């Protein structure tokens, strides 16, 4: 890896997540990840990209153990978050999911008000103090650049927001919980270019304080946003490098072909 774009801060930053030899198979026999080893830096945007079915979403869903909901047959290897193996059966998955938030491809606002959407996670965790909840609402909405648009109608139904606002609300809902890692699974796939720009701008701000892992909805978005980029193809990690390096000088032919649009 060439280091010319790496600032001293980035060199100092620790690996937030260390993935070692992770393999994953579903009960229907389909294999989704094969022997993945990957280090994810704190305070950076790591992009996982590649054609559909490459295992990007499966990997994301391992990182907050959302895969527990689907029928996973075999998961082997380790995922260390701050040094702890989260695939260990003894892991407190509830605490893990508070620490590792997730934004989905389709904005799913819960059927309640804007405010309640933001306080939902905290209330589940037993937070009852009004001041804390208020604080979380404001923090989440400001960080996701939605505050100015909705501050006067926090008690309106969240479903009344536009698609782009809904997706930023989903991001705000995660941020209200003060997670450490945020997983973003094609968060802009249903949005217009202006809304997409707003989300991307918010992500650039957020990486100062959070570890972001993004599955982008296009190669262009991958190139625009990646501090680090990992190219996945059919369950394999083909290439992993600093974003600028990978998109300008890919080392593997398959990566180059995909970036230049020869398949995908």
């Amino acid at each position: 890896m060439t280091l010319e774009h790496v600032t001293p801060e980035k060199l100092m930053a620790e690996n937030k997540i260390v993935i070692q030899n992770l393999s994953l198979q579903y009960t229907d026999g389909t294999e989704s990840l094969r022997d993945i080893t990957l280090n994810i830096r704190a305070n950076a945007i790591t992009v996982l990209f590649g054609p559909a079915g490459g295992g990007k979403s499966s990997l994301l869903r391992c990182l907050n153990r959302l895969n527990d909901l689907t029928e996973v047959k075999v998961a082997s290897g380790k995922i260390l978050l701050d040094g702890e193996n989260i695939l260990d059966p003894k892991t407190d998955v509830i605490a893990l999911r508070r620490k590792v938030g997730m934004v989905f491809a389709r904005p799913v606002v819960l059927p309640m008000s804007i405010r309640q959407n933001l306080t939902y996670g905290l209330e589940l965790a037993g937070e009852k103090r009004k001041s804390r909840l208020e604080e979380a609402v404001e923090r989440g909405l400001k960080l996701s650049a939605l505050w100015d648009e909705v501050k006067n109608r926090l008690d309106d139904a969240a479903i009344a927001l536009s698609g782009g606002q809904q997706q930023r609300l989903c991001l705000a809902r995660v941020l209200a919980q003060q997670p450490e890692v945020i997983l973003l699974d094609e968060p802009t796939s249903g949005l217009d270019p202006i809304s997409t720009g707003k989300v991307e701008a918010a992500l650039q701000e957020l990486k100062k304080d959070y570890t972001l892992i993004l599955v982008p909805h296009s190669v262009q978005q991958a190139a625009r946003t990646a501090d680090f980029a990992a190219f996945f193809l059919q369950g394999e990690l083909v290439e992993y490098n600093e974003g600028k390096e990978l998109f300008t000088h890919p080392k593997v032919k398959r990566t180059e072909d995909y970036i230049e649009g020869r398949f995908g």
Partner: protein
Amino acid sequence: MKRASFSNRDLIQRLGFSLLTLVALVTVLPILAVVMYIITEGAPAMSWEFLTAMPRDGMRAGGILPAIVGTFYLTLGTAIFSVPLGIAAAIYLSEYARENWLTRIIRIAIINLAGIPSVVYGLFGMGLFVIFLKFGTSILAASLTLSIMTLPVIISASEEALRAVPQAFRTVSISLGGTRWQTIRRIVLPQALPGILTGVILGLERAAGETAPILFTGAAFFLPRLPGSPLDATMALPYHLFVISTQVPEMPFQIQYGTALVLIAFVLGMNIIATVIRSRARAKRQW
């Protein structure tokens, strides 16, 4: 030539539509006829006394209060047993159970329970609740019997209502650190509630109108006082209607139709409540 064939086709199409409309109307006709007939024949019997007094003169005069109160108690008793059980079973089937041989057996059992003739429930209830458990001919035994009959309706309707709540809500709630139960209690149940309520009311409405299941388990032929405890027998509208229509000589026509009118009003009233809940919930639904 072409034009002619077009208008021919048009004519056939119109004929077809008219025929279908007619068939649809035919299905509405019987219910309209029954309701209208009962209203016109039963309305003259309606009076404050008819609704609030005890029967007199071998049920040939006076009111039908014990039957009204009895049907109310039986419906309430049925609700107490079948609603919590039915909803709990539906939550298990929809939210917790995995598809395997056990859930398949449960589902087959539910479908078959719904197909058993109501008189069989009556005999079963007599054997189990009245005789074996020694509840006697009582509101308790009759309510339990009606509950077993109502359960499949409530379970199926509730399960359907729960399954209609988008999966994405559950995934999001879990991803925010919710447990399965928190997700059910805070998101899934509130969203499914209108559908569940509709199913519950329709199930109870059927229970309120049944005669056979209470025949051997709790219904009294003539009991000119209000039941004082769940272990008392009771009069009930459907059974009372059967009795005064077939078992009492020289019964005034009016009282029979008046009783039928009260029963139909009770059941249709519940039906209307269910419809209102459903349409209100649809208008408010956020998905």
